[in-house]
């Protein structure tokens, strides 16, 4: 009984977390049709950008939060989109290698200025106590992850389904060539999608920074999570990504509470692997973004 309670709670908590981690990656996959391997660096820019603003420059928390978003937008447009993605859109191997290189450079830079031993303390905790849900206790801060996941997903869906720009984004994701010829400014919409894609990971990092193990190489595992959830969800379909996040959350919590916590990573990898072999289109039914 306790195990079932734990699994339920953690499925929701982890599912929301995975969703926040994967949402931006999935959007870029669905709209631009590329794997943004620079996405791992987004998490580092969020955490260490925040830390730089707070500790090295010494601004207050609210200025730092605004600052980190500006930093993130500059990074994604000025380093990821215009110099690399836009230029190498049609040359996949150059695109992927350059993106990978950039994320490694970011990691090395972070490691140079803020090595693991330096310690990072970002005071964005709204709750610092733990919460008792039946037999399960979780950090209360995790509730904010759940709320953020719901709100951001709702915003994304609203934006895609109800606004003009969202309409263009969907058109591009379904038929690039025809969109161009019907007058859609594709490059501009791409740039906007890139900006949108860094919002969920930035918010996610701000929320979990106080309760997470922060280190300069954390981008790898977060990128891996984003890739796995996106593949499982059908390469860019948001509905699929939402479902996939909670499926992965369910696998992780089930394996952790019923089996061996050390097999969590392996079991997620295996499930995604078999989905790729037997149902390469992922779990989503349609090709649309939603």
């Amino acid at each position, binding site marked *: 009984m306790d195990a079932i309670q734990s699994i339920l709670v953690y499925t929701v908590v982890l599912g929301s977390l995975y969703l926040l981690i994967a949402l931006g990656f999935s959007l870029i996959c669905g709209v631009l049709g590329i794997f943004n391997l620079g996405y791992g660096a987004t998490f580092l820019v969020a955490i260490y950008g925040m830390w730089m603003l707070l500790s090295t420059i010494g601004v207050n928390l609210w200025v730092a939060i605004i600052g980190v978003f500006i930093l993130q937008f500059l990074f994604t447009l000025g380093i990821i989109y215009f110099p690399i993605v836009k230029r190498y859109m049609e040359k996949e191997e150059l695109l992927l290698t350059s993106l990978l290189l950039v994320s490694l450079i970011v990691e090395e830079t972070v490691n140079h200025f803020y090595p693991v031993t330096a310690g990072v303390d970002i005071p964005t905790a709204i709750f610092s106590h733990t919460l008792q849900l039946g037999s399960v206790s979780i950090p209360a801060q995790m509730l904010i992850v759940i709320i953020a996941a719901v709100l951001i997903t709702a915003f994304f869906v609203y934006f895609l389904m*109800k*606004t*003009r720009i969202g*309409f*263009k984004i*969907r*058109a591009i994701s*379904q*038929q690039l*060539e*025809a*969109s*161009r*010829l*019907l*007058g*859609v*400014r*594709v490059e501009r919409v791409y740039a906007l999608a890139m900006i949108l894609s860094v919002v969920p990971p930035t918010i996610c990092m701000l929320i979990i920074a106080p309760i997470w193990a922060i280190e300069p190489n954390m981008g790898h595992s977060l990128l891996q999570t984003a890739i796995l959830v996106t593949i499982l969800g059908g390469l860019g379909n948001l509905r699929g990504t939402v479902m996939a996040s909670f499926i992965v959350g369910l696998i992780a919590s089930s394996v952790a509470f019923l089996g061996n916590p050390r097999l969590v990573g392996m079991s997620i990898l295996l499930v995604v692997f078999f989905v790729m072999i037997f149902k390469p289109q992922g779990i989503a039914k*349609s*090709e*649309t973004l939603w």
Partner: protein
Amino acid sequence: MSLLTIENVTKRFGGLTAVDNVSMEIKEGEIVGLIGPNGAGKTTLMNLIAGTFNPEEGKIVFDGHDITKLEPFQVCRRGVSRTYQIPRPFPDMTALMNVGVGVLCGKKRPNMSLVDGMLDASHCLEFVGLFGKRNILARDLSLFELRALELARALATTPRLILIDEVMAGLNQAEGRVAIRLIEKIIEEFHVTILWIEHVMKIIMEATQRVVVLHYGEIISSGLPGEIANDPQVIEAYLGEKIA
């Protein structure tokens, strides 16, 4: 007055010269047929006009403006629209939304709401006879309906020149007749200029006012439909294929 002027345009793909030093002119209101054997460069020429490709050499002028190096969306907003031989709909959007993309993006309309866009789109759908199918996803439409949808989308951008790439391919005779009637109706109602690629010679002979023949990327003949049908060079290019 000349609406579209193509001057010495050349496009190469690696060692292949797809369009070779082509010059032609289309006057406002003209219906011009573009024919030639497979691989003659007809579709490439259309892609050059629409801005999908940029030519290596030459110049393309539309309505007095040089559009040679413009992006497709800019060419579209100047008033050039095209349809595809193999329809390229937005598969997971309804017919109405497919046309809505053309309405909202085909011209600068920053203040038009999605709802107003869809209203305009429904008029275009009605014109091509697809109003009853407005809420059907494009992936569920028949080939004939997709062709009509392509025309509606083209109209939605309020074009002055429509590039039509094979309306007839894959349609049966009855559907073909309806498609031709539809294009005639578009010409009558909107006074658009048309450059029309078609393999069915009968249509070219009946529906167009002038025909340009491409062969290996070069224009080998140009003139009235009746003259073209009897041009020995054209007959040779088609190598025994019966024309007219």
